[in-house]
């Protein structure tokens, strides 16, 4: 979930109201924007925004914008304007197969200070990472407008075809060198490295602005407190993402007092003006409000709540409401998305809960009931129940044919267990300092490859380790379990690598091996650092339950 810091004072200024410092009271207010106070220390407020689908809330300006509505300080559709201008950006057709879309804006008369720049960088990072899918879908670039000569061109170059000083470096580098040497090139290079040519932005004087989506140039691509006017661009593979991300950045700068001017983006003969601060009309059914929220609202109340959520209300008819959705609400997909906001503005604390009127018969799965019976039976034999992870080190398993994890975090958990015996012996090997005899059992899942599928069964394992562990005991215990469960079985000779030859037996149920038991061989004991004799019984519950 997006978490970020900002100045509490700045936040209050943007909202236009003094806010409580008390943790719980502040929390109650931030609930309207689905955010939680993590910490307020001095002037630094750290919040976590729960909504990962609302990029407009991932900056202090956006939180303030939404909160002004919730607190009834400024309601309805927020007004953002972009002035017409003559700035142009040409899109070369060579970008089409690599990174086809770009949207841009010019924002003037800014009064930057360090905290504002920090917020901007924070927003850019969050939008690129989450909304822009780690820059693949969209990536933002911000430049010092006064050092750019229009028109700007978005085109491609050969990996070694140009050189410029990338941000944070002192020497000129080619795109190819940037991908292999610059930290951002190494981090994001895979987005473009498979292409024959790389995207580049240059101005009318052929000065390089940036190499999207990797890195800005060190001169025009640097924002400082002295910067008054900026050029913002977003490139990407999704037109709607590119436009939305640009709108978000431009509107945030407008909140800071900037004047937004649009740019004509020319794709050959076709042209498009960006940014586009246009609201969309979304119709919601009044019946859906009561159906989803369970609360009855009159027209005035519906209008009031929607406006507090910063929607515009175009028209209310007998059965529907025409809602104007601000351009930054990219999360609105279904009428329920709007209706939830009505509920939030109504206040969850004002919604009276209703007992579930559904009367149903509860119950456990047959397997759960069976497992319970079995566990009690085994505990009665004097065994301590243990629980182990499903993931294990492949090396521990007796049977190497197992389900392996493609991206394990560590070798100690790189496969799924296919038998419980090795896992239990592993448990004993970590407890050799505890008193003997040690008698343990577990009922749990094991995993097996079966063509294109993985089959999961529940197994029972019991292992006893101590001076008295012998075949007679394990056979007596096996029979005790099976007879109590009224299972018809046969006992046959069996070979299993972990057991002493001639002291291992299979349990046959309906002509199939349902499990085995016997005395563990000294080689296996040594492998698990066990100095006492041990016996074990492993049973497949599915075969047992037939």
């Amino acid at each position, binding site marked *: 979930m997006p978490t970020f810091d900002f100045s509490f004072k700045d936040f209050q200024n943007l909202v236009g109201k003094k806010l409580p410092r008390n943790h*719980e009271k502040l929390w109650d207010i931030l*609930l309207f924007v689905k955010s939680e106070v993590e910490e307020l220390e001095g002037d630094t407020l750290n919040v976590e925004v*729960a909504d*990962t*689908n609302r990029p407009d809330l991932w900056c202090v300006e956006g939180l303030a914008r939404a909160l002004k509505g919730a607190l009834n300080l400024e309601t309805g559709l927020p007004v953002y304007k972009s002035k017409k201008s003559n700035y142009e950006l040409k899109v070369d057709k060579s970008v089409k197969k690599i990174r086809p879309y770009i949207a841009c804006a010019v924002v003037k008369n800014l009064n930057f200070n360090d905290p504002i720049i920090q917020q901007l960088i924070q927003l850019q990072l969050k939008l690129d*990472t*989450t909304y822009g*899918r780690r820059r693949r*879908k969209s990536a933002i670039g911000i430049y010092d407008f006064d050092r750019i000569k229009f028109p700007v061109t978005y085109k491609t170059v050969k990996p070694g075809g140009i050189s410029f000083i990338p941000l944070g470096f002192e020497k000129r580098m080619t795109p190819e060198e940037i991908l292999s040497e610059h930290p951002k090139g190494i981090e994001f290079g895979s987005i473009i490295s498979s292409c024959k040519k790389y995207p580049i932005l240059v101005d009318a004087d052929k000065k390089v602005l940036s190499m999207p989506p990797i890195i800005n140039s060190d001169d025009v691509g640097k924002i400082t407190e002295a910067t008054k006017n900026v050029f913002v661009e977003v490139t990407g593979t999704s037109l*709607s993402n590119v436009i939305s991300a640009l709108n978000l950045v431009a509107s945030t700068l407008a909140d800071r007092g900037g004047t937004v001017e649009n740019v004509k983006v020319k794709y050959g003969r076709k042209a498009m003006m960006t940014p586009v601060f246009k609201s969309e009309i979304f119709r919601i059914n009044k019946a859906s409000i009561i159906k*989803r*929220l*369970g609360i009855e609202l009159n027209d005035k109340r519906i209008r009031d709540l929607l406006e507090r959520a910063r929607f515009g209300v175009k028209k209310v008819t007998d059965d529907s409401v025409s809602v104007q959705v601000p351009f930054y609400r990219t999360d609105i*997909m*279904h009428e*329920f*998305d709007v209706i*939830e906001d009505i*509920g*939030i503005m109504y206040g*969850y*604390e004002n*919604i*009276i*809960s*209703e007992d*579930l009127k*559904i009367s*149903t*018969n*509860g*119950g*456990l799965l047959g*397997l*759960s009931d069976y497992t319970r019976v079995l*566990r*009690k039976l*085994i*505990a009665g034999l004097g065994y*301590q*129940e*243990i629980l182990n*992870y499903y993931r294990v080190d492949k090396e521990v398993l007796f049977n190497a044919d197992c*389900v*392996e*994890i*493609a991206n*394990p975090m560590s070798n100690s958990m790189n496969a799924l267990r296919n038998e419980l015996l090795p896992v239990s012996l592993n*448990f004993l090997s*970590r*407890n050799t300092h*505890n008193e003997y005899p040690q*008698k343990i059992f577990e009922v749990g*899942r094991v995993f097996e*490859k079966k*063509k*294109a*599928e*993985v089959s*999961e069964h529940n197994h029972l394992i019991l292992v006893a380790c101590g001076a008295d562990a012998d075949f007679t005991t394990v056979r007596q215990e096996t029979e005790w379990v099976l007879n109590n469960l009224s299972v018809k079985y046969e006992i046959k000779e069996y070979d299993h690598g972990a057991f002493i030859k001639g002291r291992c037996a299979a349990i046959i149920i309906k002509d199939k091996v349902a499990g085995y038991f016997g005395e563990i061989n000294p080689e296996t004991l040594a492998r698990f650092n066990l100095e006492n004799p041990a016996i074990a019984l492993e049973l497949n519950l599915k075969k047992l339950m037939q």
Partner: protein
Amino acid sequence: MDELSDIIDSLHDFEKKVLVNLNQPASVEKIMSLSGLDQIEVMRGAQWLNNKCLIVIKEDKSVIAKLTKRGAETAKKGLPELRFLEELDKKNNQSFDDLRKTAGLDANEFNKAMGFCRQSGFVSINQGKIIINNLGKEYLKKEGRKTIILKQLVAESLDVKSVKHEEELDSLKERGLVDVEEKIGRELAATPLGIKVIKRGVDLGRKLLERNTLQVIKSKDWESTDFRRYNVKEAVPKKYYGKLHPYQEFIEKTKDKFASMGFKEMTGPYVENNFTNCDALFMPQDHPARGIHDIFYIKEPEKTELKEYKNFLKKVKKAHEKGIKGSAGWRIPFDEEFTKKHVLRSQTTSASVRMLMNEDLEIPGKYFVIDRNVRPDVIDWKHGAEFLQMEGIVLGEDMNLRSLFGLLRMFAEKVAKVEKYKIMPDYYPYTEPSASLHIFWRGKWMELGGAGIFRKEVTEPLGVKVPVIAWGLGFDRAFMAERSINDIRQLFTNDLSWLRNAEVKH
């Protein structure tokens, strides 16, 4: 009956035989010869008497020196350098060969002795003859003590304290000729209470019954003979028996609670696929939280065929790409191969998805599951290698935000059993609206879980026409709170002793 006779009745045969011989303090060895018991029997009797405060056992540690195998040989022959010097002292000015023969040394011993004596300046060589000087003679006098010690030790092992020349003994030790070992001598002495017992008289001839046996019962010996009294307050060795795992018991208890509230248990596999784990929940396929850093994938079989869900797959694909009635969908291409990829379940919500697709689904219905999940988190005190979730669904025509709040209230009041709680707006990718439940517990607000009504984009492709409330409560935390456990890794502990000693809750 008085205290003394109670004590006497509790005495084992060994105890009696030891005690009657303790009018005077005596060593274990002496008691052995007096009582006819062997050492183990005396010691056991003594220990028991000691436990009953009838005797004290004084331990006397001593260090005993004895010859090693090499030491014994050397003692027979004498130390080479001393023999070398002795012979020279007897007859000075000897040739190499003569001296070697008279001292009875082999070539190796002779060379070593020669080297040592020359280096120490005990001898000089003149025209092929060896001459002992005063330094050598003095050394011989002093070192003669070593020979004496060796000879003494041939006769018997000695208490180190009785050996006069400590320095020489140490040197013999260093040369590996003498070994020392610690020996504990025990002296037994009756306490005043013990003396009283002895004075009262311990009847050695009086038989008491030891173990109760089939024989004793049948023969009716117990009618005429008393059982020896046991000291019931005495500690016995600890033993461990069978017991259920406290965490599993907590799971079972919670399952019962949900069943009693009318919820049916549902299930799903741990090896899931992208379809049931994410796609059917309308999570966009290109979402950054679906990469290899957030979900475990498996090597082989890499993909499932999703045979049983073919029809659902088509509809889910359409919902992602083109939306459903009233929703535009994600409008990004849906990768049918990616959706088939196996993953390790990252949330039990996939079990709810499977229930919705199950032909036995009941409407109205209430379902729950408690099961394991895994995500590639770095393991620490609050992130276990596997974590349990408890969640489920409630389906019904009239389900809305108010009923969802009713459900959360039920969890707060009946499951967590708290009076103070808050329901707040929240976000989950597959529910709209969504809410979370916070409870005031032990002086702090704590998030217990969340709930929401499944998005239409989730339910409609799965063929469910009524609203579905989806809910989930944190499970590991609940158990940690019950047990006051601070480290989540304790839940799947490898520590047998923790399990053996864990309290059984009721």
